[in-house]
């Protein structure tokens, strides 16, 4: 490659690191992400820390390099666990969107100006006009059970129209090409033409499209998480009441680690453990940046090759 494509290298490296973290992160995590530390921990200078009572700031104890969250759990280990569900959900959403968008886009582009094209065009224009965040919240709020499958389903269903428009426009361009006329002349059926001749024309643009879509979906997940819509339900933390012998509810947080969840409850955490939000948001930024760079690099790579 004579042309130095640094976005491709940077983006590829960051993306590879995060996919590896999604695969192996949980085994690398030094501490159980669900374990709440209620015992007194002393550092070398004799300072005492009780993570479940007062969260430990980052870089103070070697045991918790990024500190603990407002329930007294290790943020570093939680982050290592959190990449997996979020990245899995993003990938699933993008694949789902492509699976819906490509066949419909091919059909609409091939049957240009037919009733099918007009119908899908009207529908997609309507969906595209509504901000995805608002639409996603409106649908997710209807379901009290915040399961992984719900998020994947909703984000897939609201996001495919953009991609479909792209596929449709590409198909209408390809349809004019000479090789399509030739394929018709040898008597190829329409499904065969679409599969063998039109669809392969999308291949070069597809990797960049997937990378950009991943970044958009991840940001959507992050914004949903910030507003309190994250994968997995919340539960109440009980802590020892210093004034009596019983247990009292000291806070409410989610069990399973997930990047969106670590961003939630901003104002509730701001005086207790703001570092949790900052470290999770930095991870999100790095991931989105990696995907965007990768997409940009792939776009240039295919443009140069052509």
């Amino acid at each position, binding site marked *: 490659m004579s042309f130095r494509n640094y976005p491709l290298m940077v983006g590829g490296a960051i993306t590879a690191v995060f996919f590896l973290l999604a695969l192996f992160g949980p085994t690398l995590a030094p501490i159980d992400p669900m374990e709440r530390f209620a015992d007194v921990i002393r550092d070398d200078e004799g300072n005492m820390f009780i993570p479940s009572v007062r969260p430990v700031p980052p870089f103070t104890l070697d045991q918790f390099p990024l500190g603990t969250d407002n329930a007294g759990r290790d943020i570093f280990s939680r982050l290592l666990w959190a990449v997996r569900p979020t990245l899995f959900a993003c990938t699933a959403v993008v694949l789902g969107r492509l699976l819906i968008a490509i066949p419909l886009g091919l059909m609409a582009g091939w049957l240009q100006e037919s009733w099918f094209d007009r119908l899908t065009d009207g529908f997609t224009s309507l969906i595209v*006009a509504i901000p995805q965040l608002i639409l996603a919240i409106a649908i997710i709020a209807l379901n*009290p059970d915040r399961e992984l499958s719900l998020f994947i389903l909703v984000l897939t269903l609201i996001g495919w129209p953009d991609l479909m428009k792209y596929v449709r426009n590409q198909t209408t361009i390809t349809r004019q090409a000479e090789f399509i006329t030739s394929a018709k002349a040898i008597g190829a059926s329409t499904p065969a033409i679409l599969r063998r001749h039109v669809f392969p024309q999308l291949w070069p643009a597809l990797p960049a499209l997937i990378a950009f879509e991943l970044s958009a979906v991840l940001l959507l997940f992050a*914004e949903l998480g910030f507003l*309190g819509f994250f994968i997995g339900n919340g539960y109440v933390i009980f802590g020892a009441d210093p004034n009596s012998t019983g247990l009292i509810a000291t806070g409410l947080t989610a069990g399973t680690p997930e990047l969106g969840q670590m961003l939630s409850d901003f104002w509730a955490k701001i005086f207790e453990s703001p570092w949790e939000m900052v470290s999770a948001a930095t991870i999100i930024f790095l991931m989105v940046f990696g995907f965007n*760079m990768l997409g940009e690099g792939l776009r240039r790579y295919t443009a140069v090759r052509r």
Partner: protein
Amino acid sequence: MLKFILRRLLLLIIILPLLHAAGYNYALLFYTQTRPNRPPHDHLPYPEYLRHALQTGEWGEIGRIPIWEFVAQPFLNSLVLVVIALFITLLGGVLIGVFSVSRHTKRISPAGLLLTTAGASIPGFLLGGVVITVIIYQILYNSWSRSPIPLSGFGLDIQHLALPLLVLAVRPTLHFAKMTASLLEHELHQEYVRVARSKGLTWLHVYWKHAFRNIIAPLTTVMGQATRFIVAGLLIVEMMFLWPGLGRFFVYAVAANENIRGQHQFYGNPYLLAALAVLIGLMLLTADLIAGAAAYQADPRIRDV
């Protein structure tokens, strides 16, 4: 031009009542979905509600304030943010976009690419969260007597507006810059640019008078995208800086979140949700109208469609 605008206005008049119906019916569905164990709600079905409202002029109340009066102030508060953020987006986006294309290689410069890609990847709440966290920690541990700018709350002065606008505008601006740069990059490789240069015109002239005029029409589409980013960003910004606008009431109305306790009167309120759907739709459709009119003005080829 006038015909185009009138047609779009007609569309607006058709869509807004549909949004009102959608918002109201969504709230009724929301009630039965999220509160299955409660007694059924006592709100009228939409047709009866509409007939009653049209006859008497009563569209419902929140805390004894008529709903349209109630949402008017939040609407204006949000509108201020949206309009200024959009202005920053257009101005900043175009400037950053133009300067990130190198005039020697006619390509996006590496620094420009890094800046626009990184900027378009920053989640708004990261920026806002870091600023708020840093200021709070300076106050708690480093003996700052007070914050240099208000961390939250509403006000129409530059100090109150600075943080929300920063968070709201940074991603759309750099997204806009990125799109401007890539469109310009494509345009500068056209033959007519070479012709204009060989005629002896200055780069500045070629940029602004030749290349830039050709990308205005596609940029209006990007402006529509940017508006959607900004309106969605309202939810984040208004929750983060406690700005009393539409986005915050939308979150109150649908999100049963633990940190917004005590907002029961808004939770799933059909009048509020219907009004919010209309007003948010109005913002988006108006932006779309302006973008469409700009494209119509800039590109004669789309006039006869």
